[in-house]
């Protein structure tokens, strides 16, 4: 809901003076309503990204290809001097994730909504500047000090560029995290000669996030079923006990896990068999087409 209101305010500020009011107001309202409608389920769980990544049809694409092409696209987007590269990537990534990857549109937008709302708050700060007169497109008087907070065409252009850069880059990041499960990303990092200690830790942390989360959920439910959260006082107590228990259990788990690794002859580092799919011609061509389009937009004198 907050995102929806934010979208309305931000788009109004960004486009006011550039579009006639008769077009601007419905556009802002439409954007807001659309976002409110898509995110009406509210509870996007923090790990839904992992579930979505496992689900995506783009998962079988060679992770090295995905990683590099999106990395390069991101750089092209940030280096570009116009807003179109960013907007193109926003749309292209949405198409890739939703229509090629097979994710539900609403889930994709919900994942994107969080970084985008931060982006819009930052954008608002960029839009307004202090000016001594009401020369801007949009002016808010500050009564006591006698100056205006105003939005000018110049700040609008500047903000549009920054926001477009960020939208494009965030879209690229979203696509990689929604199409590549963490272990694949870790294996790409390993092949890029990331230190093996870091890689081992990443594997273990990824695995343990789920183990500890499950443990925590179980303990919470157990506490709830014994009325542990009936009042503020008991909630504090129960939460404290759950976390101290979680610490103790994670130590136990770690030592068991270490035994299990030892029993399977693990003595240096964690290594798994990697059998990534070959880069197919179609995938390479799609990647090249995306890159070409982004480069053309980037260098086009618009």
């Amino acid at each position: 809901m907050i995102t929806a209101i934010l979208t309305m305010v931000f788009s109004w500020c960004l486009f006011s003076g550039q579009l006639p009011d008769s077009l601007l107001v419905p556009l802002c309202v439409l954007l807001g309503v659309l976002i409110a409608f898509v995110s009406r389920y509210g509870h996007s769980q923090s790990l839904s990204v992992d579930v979505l990544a496992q689900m995506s049809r783009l998962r079988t694409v060679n992770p090295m290809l995905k990683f590099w092409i999106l990395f390069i696209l991101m750089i092209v987007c940030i280096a570009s001097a116009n807003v179109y590269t960013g907007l193109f990537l926003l749309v292209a990534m949405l198409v890739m994730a939703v229509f090629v990857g097979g994710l539900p549109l609403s889930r994709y937008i919900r994942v994107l909504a969080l970084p985008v709302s931060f982006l819009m708050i930052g954008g608002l700060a960029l839009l307004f500047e202090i000016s001594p007169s009401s020369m801007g497109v949009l002016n808010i008087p500050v009564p006591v000090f006698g100056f205006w907070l105003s939005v000018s065409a110049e700040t609008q252009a500047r903000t549009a560029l920054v926001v477009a850069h960020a939208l494009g880059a965030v879209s690229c990041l979203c696509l990689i995290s929604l199409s590549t499960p963490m272990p694949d990303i870790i294996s790409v990092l390993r092949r890029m000669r990331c230190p093996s200690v870091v890689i081992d830790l990443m594997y273990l942390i990824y695995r343990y996030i789920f183990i500890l989360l499950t443990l925590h959920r179980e303990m919470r439910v157990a506490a709830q079923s014994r009325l542990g959260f009936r009042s503020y006082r008991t909630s504090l107590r129960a939460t404290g006990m759950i976390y101290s228990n979680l610490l103790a259990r994670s130590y136990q788990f770690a030592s068991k896990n270490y035994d299990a690794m030892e029993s399977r002859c693990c003595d240096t580092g964690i290594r798994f068999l990697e059998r990534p799919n070959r880069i197919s011609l179609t995938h390479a061509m799609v990647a090249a087409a995306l890159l070409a389009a982004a480069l053309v937009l980037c260098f086009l004198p618009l």
Partner: protein
Amino acid sequence: MSELLRVEHISYRYDDVYTALKDVSVSFMKGELVAILGSNGAGKSTFFLCCNGVLRPHEGRIFYQGQEISKSRKHNLMLRQGVGLVFQDPDSQIIAGNVESEVSFGPMNLRLPADEVGRRVDKALAQMSIERYRDYAPQYLSGGEKKRVSIADILAMQPAMILLDEPTASLDPQNSDALEGVLSELNREGITIVISTHDVDFAYRIAQRVIVFAQGEIIANAAADEVFASDEMLKRAGLKKPLLYEAFESLQQRFGNLESERKPRSIEEFRTLLENARPAF
């Protein structure tokens, strides 16, 4: 049958205070299927960790294929490769982010070439019939599926002997039956299987030999029928007789000599026995 693993007088203490194993001696033959019974805290898990070389017993010696296991790294690796250990809780064993990587972890540690690792992984997945979960992340598998993954983990290392710590503890009856089938199948292929459990019915059904632990000691080590005949020993171990064993005993007491070459181990055997029996009413 040749001897595969022998432990002689091993003892183990946790933190030098709590004695988990006291003077345990036992040996396992090639191709055997043995059940280890004992109540909670009887020392079964510690025994397994010692057999696999993760824990080093404070006293005693371990022989693998006639070779005494010294402290050297080479011997330790030999023991860990030859004697696989499936942990009770699959979650404490599984470390990878997907099933295929998980199963490859053991063979990778054996420093095998990648194509050999691939072959072993495929074979182990097929043996446990979990090929379709190849790309699944462990957090989205059910308990029974995770158990299969944890066994495939060990199979991929191609051990001569597999120790399973309470494999049926958290499985539903259907998964438990499936597991029983898999274990018998592996045993037929010549792998020595040792299962720790406190499910006496399961042990009676599947095991050729039964070893009973109580307070860190072995108090019985014989054929299943022999072990379950001793009331006093079972009481000491905190165990009960298998239901079928007791049912057969009661029938025999009531109707006299039932004709059977051996006591029925499964419900099918029991039914066949009843059909063929001509009790003297």
